[in-house]
Every structure is written in C-alpha cells, then in structure tokens.
C-alpha cells in the first residue's frame, strides 16, 4: 500500500451460497452459489471519490456492504489505512432507500446524535444538541426539525437527514450506495449539489455507487465499471467518458438517455444480464458484446493498464472514443 492509498481491495470475492437441502448436505456436494463480486481489486486514494457504475445485479451494492464491513468477503482482503494509533478510520454510509434507513421510533435529534455519542465526538447534552443543529443547517434543514420524527419528512428531506447523520460521525470514509436513485429528478439535483459542496469543503474520501452515469461523472474523480461482479474498466472520470476502453463502458454511455435534442434515439444494450450464478465462459461480456470473437468465448481476458492510470479487461485494443457503436448483430444474439 503506497502512502496516498486510503483503501485497497485485493482480489475481493463474495459468494452467496444457496441454502442447501438436507440431502444435498448429506451428499456433501458443493452447490457453488452466486459469485456476486468476483476478484475485484481497487484502490481509493486519500481525498478522492471513486465511482462505481453498472447494471442492477452487477454486485456494486454487495461491494458497498463488503467495504462497510457489514459482510465479510469470501476471499480477498479489504484494508484501510490505519492512523498513527493503529485505529481503523471511522466509516459512514448513506443508503439508497431514505425510508428504511431511519429508525421511525427515534426523533431526528436522536438519530443524528447517535454517531456523535458512539464516537464521543462531543461531550455534554448542550454540545451535542448544538452540533445536531449545526448539521441540520448544513444539510438545508432547520434546527426546529430536530424534535420531529422521520415520518414527517419527504424522501429528499429524509436523505438530507441521512447525510447529516453520516456527517455527524465525522467520517474519514463515506460510502454512498445509490444515494439519489430513490429521489425525484429535481430533488436529486439538490442532494447532488449538497454532496458536492460537502465533498469540496470536508475533503471526504468516498466510494460513490450508482447506476446513473451522469451522476457519477459529476461526483467521482475516478470511475470503475462493473459487469457481473467483475470490475471491467477503471479510469479517471473524464478519461472514461472521452476514451472508454471496454465495449461495455461504451454501450453503457450510449445507453444513457441524454438531453441532447438532436439525437432522440435510444441505444439499449442488447440481450439480458446473464445469471450471475452461471456466468458465461471466457469474457463474461461476450454474450452481449458486438465485437465478440472466438477468443472471447473461451479465454478470460487479461487485465490491461492504460497510460492514463486506468485499467480494463478486454482482449482487444479497441478505439471506442467516438461515435456510437452499432448494437450487436443478429448472429451474436443467437449465439
């Protein structure tokens, strides 16, 4: 781990085992299970925001739970930089669903004060209350809201409360698991603005997980693209959009509907996401890739690095920097 590295994931995998029946257990056959995260290596440097994008079911939320320590990886290692005293950094997480992430029986004051009390960041009732009020103002709510219960707030306001709670823990590392996906577009913009201001002012190191490319483009310094549990490409944010190396990244960028009125066409990625319990052989993307050749079906692609500090997993050195690529032809679909 080099000096600037804050968090490193070293070949991390997570396998969800299927519940085995009594007879299967007797037979001692290995049921295998679903490889939700497969051999992911990733580094987050101090003060940097790394974005993770991918379709639903690609394992990005599982990765978030692994990093947060809610689950242990099946194999591989997740290590944080420890401070001088050898203590692990304080973590906080912001969840997708602002409704289930707040305890409905607690007042807003109690909710936001919890991390302060657990980490003993302020002493005394008055100091804690003052800090809660300060945080409420910081996220655009009013100190009077502290007396209320979560049920009295809208989704956007609840997400602000979640952000205030996360900040109350004075986290050194923040995990954001689709923090805006459950919100209206107008509210999304407010929350993103708030998060960006906080990023700038508090110099947070964070992992930002989303399926929305335009969101991750605004928020992240570097972006990782996940497909079926694998990290297929990773690059600095602008580099990824300017010069994607992996066909999946290109297709993902093209699939996002944009506000450009000159181009009303949509480019969905052909085919279905394969069952992660039985991933395709060779390159996992070959069933949907417009450039797939025989080698892709049989051989796992190597991990290549780019001169711009990125990496990607593809057999070919494709130039995907401009123009949409045509959706896969019929013969690929039937393959």
């Amino acid at each position, binding site marked *: 781990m080099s000096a600037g590295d804050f968090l490193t994931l070293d070949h991390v995998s997570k396998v969800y085992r299927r519940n085995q029946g009594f007879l299967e257990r007797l037979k001692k056959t290995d049921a295998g299970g679903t490889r939700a995260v497969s051999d992911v290596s990733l580094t987050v440097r101090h003060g940097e925001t790394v974005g993770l994008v991918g379709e639903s079911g690609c394992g990005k939320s599982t990765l978030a*739970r692994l990093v*947060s*320590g*809610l689950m242990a990886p099946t194999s591989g290692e997740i290590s944080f930089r420890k401070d001088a005293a050898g203590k692990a950094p304080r*973590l*906080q*997480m912001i*969840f*997708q*669903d602002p409704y*289930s*992430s*707040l*305890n*409905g*029986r*607690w007042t807003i004051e109690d909710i936001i004060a*919890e*991390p302060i009390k*657990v*980490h003993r960041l302020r002493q005394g009732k008055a100091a804690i*209350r003052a800090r809660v*009020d*300060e945080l409420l*103002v910081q996220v655009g709510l009013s*100190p*009077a809201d*502290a*007396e209320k219960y979560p049920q009295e707030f809208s989704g956007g306001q609840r997400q602000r409360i*979640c952000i205030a*709670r996360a900040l109350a*823990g004075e986290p050194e590392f923040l995990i954001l698991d689709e923090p805006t996906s459950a919100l209206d577009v107008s509210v999304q913009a407010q929350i993103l603005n708030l998060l960006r201001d906080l990023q700038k002012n508090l110099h947070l190191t964070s992992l930002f997980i989303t399926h929305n490319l335009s969101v991750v483009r605004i928020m992240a310094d570097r972006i990782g693209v996940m497909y079926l549990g694998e990290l297929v490409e990773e690059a600095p944010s602008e580099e990824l959009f300017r010069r994607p190396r992996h066909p999946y990244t290109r297709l993902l960028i093209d699939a996002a509907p944009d506000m450009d009125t000159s181009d009303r066409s949509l480019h969905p990625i052909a085919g279905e996401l394969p069952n992660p319990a039985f991933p395709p052989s060779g390159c996992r993307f070959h069933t949907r890739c417009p450039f797939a050749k025989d080698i892709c079906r049989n051989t796992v692609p190597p991990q290549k690095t780019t001169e711009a500090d990125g990496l990607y997993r593809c057999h070919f050195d494709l130039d995907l920097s401009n123009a949409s690529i045509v959706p896969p032809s019929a013969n690929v679909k039937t393959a």
Partner: protein
Amino acid sequence: MTTVVNAPSAPAARRSRFANLRRAMLKAPGATLCAVIILAMFLYAFITPLVSQNPFEFAGMSVLDSFIPPMWMTDGVPDFPLGTDDQGRNLLTAMAYGMRTSIIVGFLSVIIGLLLGGSLGLVAGFVGGRVDAFIMRLADVQLAYPALLLAMIIDGAARAALGAERSVATAITIVVLSIGIAFWVQYARTIRSSVMIERDQDYVSAARITGRGNLSIIVLHILPNVMAPVLVIATINLGIAIITEATLSFLGIGIPVTSPSLGTLIRNGNNFLQSGEWWISVWPCLVLVLFVVSVNILGDHLRDVYNPRLKGRS
C-alpha cells in the same frame, strides 16, 4: 456559526397527544367504555382492601350472617347488598379481594410470558440459524400441549418439588410462573418474525457501521420497533391468563382459600349452587366475565389501531 434555537415545545406535543386520545375515544365508544369498566374494577379491587376488614381473616367472618341473599330478595339485608357466603362474608367485599388476586396473577403471568417469550423470540430472530431452529422447535413442541394442561403440569410438578408446606406467596408464585411459561410461545413467534424484518433494515446497518454492538442494536433500535404487536397480544392474553388462573383455582390447584381469587370464590360458591344459594358463585362469575370481555374488546381495538393493514377500515 451560532444558531439561536427555541426551547423544545414539549407542552405543545403533550397537548396534541391529549387531543389524539380524545379523538380516539370518540371514534371508539365501545373500547372507551371497556377501558372505563377496567379502570373502575381496578380501583375497586385495590382500594376496598385498604378501607375494609379482610373477610378471609378470622376477624372478618361472622357465621351468624351466613347465607344472607342479595338485599332485594326476601331476607335480604341492606348491609350486604349482594348477600353473604357460607362463612358470613360480605360478597361485595370478598369479590374486591378476589379481583385483586386475579388481576395481580393475570398481570404478573403476562409479564413473565412476555419477558420469557420476548427474549427468546428476540434471540431467535436476531441470531437465526441453529439457535433459531432450536427455540422454534421447542415452541412447536409446546404448542402440541393445551396451555391449560401445561400450566397444570408445571403447577403440579412445582408443588411436588416444594412439598406440602408452603405459604400463600409461594402458591401465587407457582401459579404465575406456570401460566407465564404456558403462554410464552405466542410472544416468541410474533417478536421473532418482526425482528427478522427489522434486522435487515438499513437503519440497523447504519447503526452497525457507526459502531453499535449487537446488544445496543437490539435494545435501542429493534425492540422499540417490534413492541407494538406484542403489547396488543399481551392485552388479549391478560384475559386468557385470568381465565386460566380462575380455572386452576376452580379445580382447586391454584390459589388457596385464605387469599382467594375470583376462581376460588366461584369454586366455593359452586358447592351451594344445588342448595339454592346461587349468589355465592354467580356474582364472581359475572365479574370475571365482565372483566375478561372488557379486556378482550379493548385488546381487539388496540390490534385494529396498530395493524396498518386494517387502517382505513372501520
């Protein structure tokens, strides 16, 4: 940056809670009536022993006054509005003592069941796996026995173990424990299923990432969120517990005559039903029915209020 904060407006909140209560009472006059009946019986049962001579002590009996019928019948005396029993006890006073014992036993046994079933259900739901399987199979086995039979078995076993020499307090403790143990399964199952839903919620994950341990998460986060349905069951079970205790006492294996419950009074009066002194057992019966029916209606109402699926219907 300093922000001026107004003092929390606690009185306002309290007032609105009061207003809520009044609105709820107007919306459900039946349940309100039951609540009033329960409260009145409570007050009567707990105040009378403070101001009157205990009829179950020697000084409280007067054999000369025995078998006096209720005051509106011929031979009735205004001093004994509901008549007297075989020992000349004023039934009105005797029933206060009986109700007091019944209520105490009912509440204590519900609390025992709640504590036992609640904690086992919490552990089963939170830990899961083998612990969960063990506790729930235990519950399944217990469900195969009728609760009353189980209470009798526990009661009998405890008596055999403690021998013939025992105080009233021991007898009541045995009854309370046996009824409590007989009814833990329902609480355990309800709590377990609620806990299994709550433990996967994001607010629990947030608390865990913040650094809360399992115990604080259970006590501070999960418990407040799973209590409502269980408290409703407890209300309904209060009626069942009182009936169970009355049945045990009626069968002569519950509370001794020196500190009677309603069931003991009914059993006592039962001996004279054939000879025409019906009032000795009918009054305790009516009081028992009124109390248990009131508790059940109130419990049903609470269940409707707390069940979000029934919301909107009335």
